[in-house]
């Protein structure tokens, strides 16, 4: 499976990753060879095999509906790039 430059650009957009234009070709090559590796999966027939999500096929444990967390805003916001009035700030989102 080979990718084209436009494929790389649109995947990069989906993943919100900036890639320099002059690096796109390099990514095309790298990603194409990785995909070639991955295509080896088609060598085997897996029809009817139940997909495995969790290695132990375990099921979800449920938590009681209790408030167990207290307010730690100051501690958490100490490491934030831009906060004001208790809010995380980002460039204006237009809706």
């Amino acid at each position, binding site marked *: 499976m080979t990718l084209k430059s436009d494929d790389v650009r649109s995947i990069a957009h*989906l993943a*919100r990753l900036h890639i320099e234009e002059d690096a796109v070709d390099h990514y095309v090559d790298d990603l194409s060879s990785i995909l070639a590796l991955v295509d080896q999966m088609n060598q085997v027939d897996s029809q009817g095999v139940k997909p495995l*999500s*969790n290695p132990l096929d*375990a*099921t*979800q*444990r*449920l*938590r*009681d*509906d*209790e*408030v*167990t*967390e207290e*307010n*730690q*805003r100051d501690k*958490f*916001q100490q490491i934030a790039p*831009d906060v*004001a*009035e*208790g*809010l*995380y*700030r*980002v*460039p*204006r*989102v*237009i*809706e």
Partner: protein
Amino acid sequence: MSAAQTGHEETGQWETVIGLEIHAQLATSSKIFSGASTAYGAAANTQACAVDLGLPGVLPVLNREAVRMAIRFGVAIDASIDHQSVFARKNYFYPDLPKGYQISQFEHPIVGKGQISISPAEGEHKLVGITRAHLEEDAGKSIHDLFPEQSGIDLNRAGTPLLEIVSEPDMRSAREAVAYARKIHSLVRYLEICDGNMQEGSFRCDANVSIRRRGDDKLGTRAELKNINSFRFLERAINYEVERQIEVLEDGGRVVQETRLYDSERDETRSMRSKEEANDYRYFPDPDLLPVNISSSDIAEIRAALPELPEQKKQRYISELNLSDYNAELLTANRDTALYFEAAYAEADATQSAVLANWILGDLGGALNKAGLDITESPISPAALVQLVARIADETISGKIAKQVFDAMWQGEGSADDIIAARGLRQITDSGAIETLIDEVIAANPEQVEQFRAGKEKVLGFFVGQVMKESRGKANPGQVNALLRDKLK
């Protein structure tokens, strides 16, 4: 005014097709995947713990009560419940979505196909299908007008459990859509899984609206309407959108599949400019969560503990309590109203059910509305109302006087009996006393007597009015009527 604006189902050659997506915030104490509080109104980011913030290394653990509430809803709409429900990640970037994905459900939603009966107009009934209902976490909130050039993000709401209820595109008018929304709203409150507060955002309706030529069975392109926070706006938004789409198609254009925001001030829908073209959400099962096992006995236990639901209640009111379909529908629409009615009925004579219903829906409902009170805050208790109604039934007071008594009760002057005694409002039923009044009135109005005797039936009303006036409303109207006729012969 166009046919669409009247909300009338007939839009000429065009048929409206509507599906609703309702997000009901579940009334748990803690978040769906963390132990932070869900209480409304806290200062920004004071209820966003490490898990809600999506800090590196944190993990979700599922809230049992959210699961139970979802199952309760599923059972109430006769839906199938998935025995191994799976959470999936819905991947997209937005500042109020801290992890860059929302934990939601894709394949294997907890609640499968169900249905609910709606009454869009008096006497009308329709079954609306529900495609599925699934659990997911809510996102945070963005505040756009506090800082110049920047938006502020509050993640208190992030992680609040939501039940997303998706209807089949079964509705054919704004009225039907509103009836459906109201029914679901009533149901989630009955089930005590959601407080239904649309102002606070705990009950959100998005409408998918499309039109097609009548007779077509293919669905037209739909627009998704958002930002609707009342039933009134839901109706208006849909009506506006239907008319807009009709205009587009009649002008030879095509409807674009898009999200549109409803602007209540201008009463119009607008395209969301910043919204992406079809997002690729890259759903996959969340590897931090495991499939949720729900057994038949879990479901049976929840079913057994269900309160009587609106539809059952309504049918019971009709068949056992002799109420009209209309009154039964209105009384059961709100669980608290139904409970008030039932409390009153329990104290009253069985024959008074309709009378009670009318007082609750009419005078009491009106007074509550005007004062902005919930029925649970009514200054008149069910028992007190029952006493008032009994005094009309036993002819202690007339219906008209009863309204005066009601107003006095509302003001806190006491019970019906207290007020009747204090104000001397007992009906006059003594024939002798009434006859005396009648004699006085007849004597005072010889012209009208002549007119009546000459054949003018209407004049009787004048005499009745005069007698009632003389008795300050207390004379029994029926007796007045009968005795007057006698005397005027």
